[in-house]
């Protein structure tokens, strides 16, 4: 990437008492790029957003936005907009007033306010809801209002904290391409926090996986899937989960469920324990001498059936068991 990074985090640390919530986060997000911060709950991903926004203090490290150090600026002076998980709409104000209040505070002249309001209402199809209060909106509508408010901030950086988590699954899938289109329409980089890897893969250009306050790996969805940097990322990315087979030499072999193939001889002997049928494929849970295995296939195996499974060496991931780090770099391509 030759573009200069628009947002840069250098050794970001956040502590509460003795506990390190964030432990030296280094990250770059380019102009116009959408990065997903992915991790299990409690991994510190929301804290990263709050520190960048200035809502939580930064105990160590620097935050550079377009080359300027904003580490210790008050939130109001960072030109950062955030979509909150709760949306944080002002409950006593109409949609229109929710959207114009910020412009009013920033001294945008009334005619310009009206223009920008009209443009964003149009973009997010909120025109008919101008006079409604937040309580009179559906979850999806509230999310659009929150997004509209963030866009009107004309931010140099857009932060989204689990913006889909209050929506039902179907609506989430509908909104994903919309959100992606809107975010990639801007020049500002965006950071999207989520615990849902489907959402991360669907929206983001790159994904940063966070665990225990540390950055595990940062790359495109493909890189994370085909080339996980450690055991945590291998296990976290990909559904159904990767099969991990401990070896005698202190290493672990990882093999994705769809990369297992039935073989006539050699391989691992297994027995089918249960089965889920998903239409396009079926998901088998197998018993083996090395523990349970997951296999995604399109065959017609029956419960109780015994067979042998193998895999091509190029699909094999190998990790050191003790540290979890990756060994070598096979499996680069599927």
């Amino acid at each position: 990437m030759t573009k200069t990074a628009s947002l840069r985090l250098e050794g970001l640390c956040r502590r509460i008492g003795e506990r390190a919530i964030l432990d030296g986060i280094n990250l770059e997000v380019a102009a116009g790029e959408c990065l997903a911060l992915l991790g299990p709950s409690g991994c510190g991903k929301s804290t990263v957003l709050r520190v960048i926004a200035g809502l939580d203090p930064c105990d160590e490290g620097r935050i550079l936005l377009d080359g300027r150090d904003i580490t210790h600026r008050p939130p109001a002076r960072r030109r950062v907009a955030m979509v909150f998980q709760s949306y944080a709409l002002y409950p006593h104000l109409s949609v229109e007033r929710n959207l114009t209040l910020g412009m009013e505070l920033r001294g945008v002249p009334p005619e310009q306010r009206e223009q920008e309001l009209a443009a964003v209402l149009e973009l997010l199809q909120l025109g008919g809801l101008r006079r409604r209060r937040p309580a009179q909106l559906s979850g999806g509508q509230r999310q659009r209002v929150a997004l509209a408010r963030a866009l009107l901030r004309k931010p140099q950086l857009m932060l989204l904290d689990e913006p889909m988590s209050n929506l039902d699954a179907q609506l989430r899938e509908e909104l994903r391409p919309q959100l992606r289109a809107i975010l990639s329409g801007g020049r500002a980089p965006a950071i999207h926090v989520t615990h849902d890897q489907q959402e991360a893969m669907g929206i983001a250009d790159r994904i940063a996986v966070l665990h225990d306050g540390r950055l595990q790996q940062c790359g495109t969805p493909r890189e994370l899937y085909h080339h996980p940097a450690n055991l945590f990322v291998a296990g976290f990315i990909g559904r159904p989960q990767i099969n991990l087979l401990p070896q005698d030499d202190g290493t672990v072999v990882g093999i994705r469920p769809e990369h297992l193939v039935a073989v006539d001889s050699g391989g691992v002997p297994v027995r089918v324990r249960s089965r889920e049928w998903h239409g396009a494929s079926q998901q088998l849970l197998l018993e083996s001498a090395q523990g349970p295995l997951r296999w995604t296939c399109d065959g017609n195996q029956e419960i109780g059936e015994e067979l042998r499974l193998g895999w091509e060496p190029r699909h094999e991931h190998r990790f050191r068991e003790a540290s979890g780090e990756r060994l070598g770099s096979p499996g680069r391509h599927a």
Partner: protein
Amino acid sequence: MSSLLLMAPALLLLLAVFVWPLLDYAWLSLQAQSVFTGLETVPVGAANWQRLLADGRFWQDAGQTLRFALVSVALELVAGLAIALLLHQRWRGRGTVRSLALLPWALPTTVMALGWRWIFNDPHGPLNGVVQSLGLATVPFLASPDLAWVATVVADVWKTTPFVALLLLAGLQMIPADLYEAFALEGGTPWQGLRRITLPLLRPYIFIAALFRLAQALGVFDLIAVLTGGGPASSTESLAVYAYLNAMRFLDFGYSATVMLGMFLLLLLGAAALLLWRRQAEVGA
């Protein structure tokens, strides 16, 4: 029929403690029962009510009561809001101060009124001690009509501000913190946040606090009875104190009942006007 049966306990209670005394007072206000009648009840028709309409002291007390209620409740709302905002911030020892702040309200009014009477005492009270240490002549706080009125307001504000603060603090805790965070990210200052977010969202709580306090302050009795006795020259007298004096000092029970009912009717009128105004405001909004 069974619904009436189920409501009966509550209805009986209301009849016993509310409706019956009211009717009894209404009846009593049409009687003369005083030392002149040998405390016998003698029907006098509307004589008590005619006397009430022409009674300058009643109307003066009504004005004084209203002024006392409006001024002290207004001060309590402002001070209560300031204290609530302070107690809502995070700081060391906040928990302790929160409980301490409630103490004045937990104190029996009579006890605290006695305390304030001592504080305002001329010339021995602590306040006059401060005045004297400044080299000035002592001030007759409770003997001058204007200062005595101020003293009743000060004591009332001191006692009931914690109640208002507690109610408003509960209201503040209902406002999600992320609203302020969103507001700050939009470029708003804390002062703007108070005006644009806190006050509008606190409005229902302010209304409830004002309603509770106005109802109490308009019926103020114990504080004034103990602190000033309504004096000097009935300048701090409230309607409740006047009704009490009529019954217990002048032993004119018929007229005392009339004063009480008159006060009740005035309050009813005020409450109706307030409700009407609010309904209109809601329709307008």
